[in-house]
């Protein structure tokens, strides 16, 4: 730096910091790019189940006509929980995009393992913040993922373009992208918090399993959350399972962004939804900070 003699070292300190983070990010990106061929193929294959899903839901919609419970929308198409067949397939495709942002494979398990086997020491002895480091490595992972996966994603969306009626307006695009990024942050902090429960209970794999199950079923990955509205929590109650699931944060991992894109959440509801999502993100961010600090104080460095 040119200004060596300045009394305040803050700018150079900051730049040193930025450089550290930049290098970490670059290393993580390179690490992720090692198996790119395998990666692109794997991504394309991941879309295969959408083929069966299209047929399954087409079949379901074909028989909805004879059913009395559901109503036709103004255009005369059959709907289930407010979705036409084309919308629901567009919705499933979009949840895959949302999951690609919010899913953090192995994050919680990895943190818990490093607590158990003692390798978390490296974050204590080195001047690197664990939550920041892991966040960057996830960002790197996602960046690489999207660079490599853009092609398969584009191909699949191109083939399925018929299911998208019209492209949403600019505001919807903004809200959609915002919800995707917040979904990423929510997924990251939620999972790292779960992993850090390992400071208190050494074995958290069954807990993680329960979380995985809930997030899979309640995030809207398998069906739009509105489909749960018809089912009362217990017979006779005015509360449905849908109401309960809307209170939980899981919906922001898949349902929310996808529903925004297909235009199922609009106006005030959309603004409120985004605000609530932001609150969840901030809450889990704060909680994971607290858990990390408290946890380190409890930590007794097992293992070699």
């Amino acid at each position, binding site marked *: 730096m040119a200004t060596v003699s300045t009394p305040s070292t803050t700018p150079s300190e900051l730049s040193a910091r930025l450089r550290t983070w930049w290098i970490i990010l670059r290393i993580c990106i390179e690490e992720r790019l090692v198996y790119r061929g395998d990666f692109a193929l794997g991504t394309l294959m991941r879309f295969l189940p959408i083929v069966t899903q299209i047929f399954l839901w087409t079949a379901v919609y074909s*028989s909805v006509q004879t059913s009395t419970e559901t109503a036709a929308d103004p255009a005369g198409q059959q709907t289930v929980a407010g979705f036409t067949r084309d919308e629901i397939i567009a919705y499933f495709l979009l949840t895959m995009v949302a999951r690609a942002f919010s899913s953090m494979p192995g994050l919680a398990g990895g943190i818990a393992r490093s607590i158990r086997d003692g390798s978390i020491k490296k974050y204590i002895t080195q001047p690197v913040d664990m939550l920041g480091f892991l966040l960057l490595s996830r960002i790197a992972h996602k960046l690489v993922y999207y660079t490599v996966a853009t092609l398969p994603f584009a191909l699949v969306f191109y083939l399925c373009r018929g299911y998208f009626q019209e492209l949403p307006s600019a505001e919807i695009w903004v809200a959609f992208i915002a919800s995707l990024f917040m979904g990423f942050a929510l997924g990251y902090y939620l999972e790292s918090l779960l992993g850090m429960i390992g400071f208190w209970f050494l074995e958290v794999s069954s807990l993680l399993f329960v979380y995985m199950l809930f997030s899979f079923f309640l995030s809207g990955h398998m069906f739009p959350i509105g489909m749960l509205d018809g089912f009362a929590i217990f017979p006779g109650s005015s509360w449905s399972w849908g109401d309960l699931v809307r209170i939980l944060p899981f919906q922001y991992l898949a349902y929310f962004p996808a529903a925004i894109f297909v235009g199922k959440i609009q106006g005030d509801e959309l603004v409120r939804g985004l605000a609530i999502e932001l609150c969840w993100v901030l809450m889990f961010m704060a909680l994971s900070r607290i858990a990390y600090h408290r946890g380190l104080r409890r930590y007794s460095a097992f293992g070699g």
Partner: protein
Amino acid sequence: MQHSSNTDIGTTAPTRPPRASYRRVFLTFARNSLIRDMTFRTNFVIECISALSWMFMNLGLYLIIFGYTDSIGAGTGWGKYQFFVFLSTTLFINSLIETFFMPNTEEFSEQVRTGGLDFALLKPIDTQFLVSFGKMDWSSLANFLFAIVLLSYSLSRLEYQPGWIEFVLYPLYVLCGVAILYSLMIALAALSVWLGRNQNLYDFWFYITSFSRYPMEIYNGPLGTPLQKVFTFIIPVLIVVNVPARILAQPMTQPKWQLAVFALGATVACLGASRWLFLKSLDSYRSASS
């Protein structure tokens, strides 16, 4: 049958070892696996619960779907309880695959990569048998037991009652289904000999078999019909569940009986083809490491 080229290393052919008793070896494998599972009993219970939870989640999805519709596909006859018969059949077949073959083929590709397959080749017993049955995962049978409950309940809710012929044929066709899926699995595993490593093997298997998990009637239309033909006649995963489930859930028609006959032939062909591929792959196996 033995792979003499691989096993007889000595210059002079030694006296043939007594023929292995496959039944006894199999029972020993089963017993050892059970002992291993019972050593960590809590873990075993957790594994059972986890297998059941995934299944219940799947069941939950269909319960929700049937809250909105009467059947999967208009006019296909797959109403709620017919479909639950279908689902129990899927559970029977998948749990058998997961119990017997999944843990083994998973290990096979790893053995190819590390060279551990040498160990299996030297044993005086058929390599495919050893590779296929070495380990059993008893906890996967939890879903099998649940499937019995689901099947009995669904059948009791159905108007159509299958006759005794159907009840005799059902387990036979469930086994045919298991055999077809097993063949596919062992064929993919054999590919790992040539590919060196086949990490996407399981994903691939999962995605291909995901076609088998729905009634074949849903595949129609310009894309669906060719898909149905391919997955019935070329890679016959569609008949795996469809044939046995249909036998119990709905009255059989002429074309369905024809399909059932075809399923028998397909099973034999699949087992034969995968056997051939497996032996072929062993010929190309060059031990790794050391």
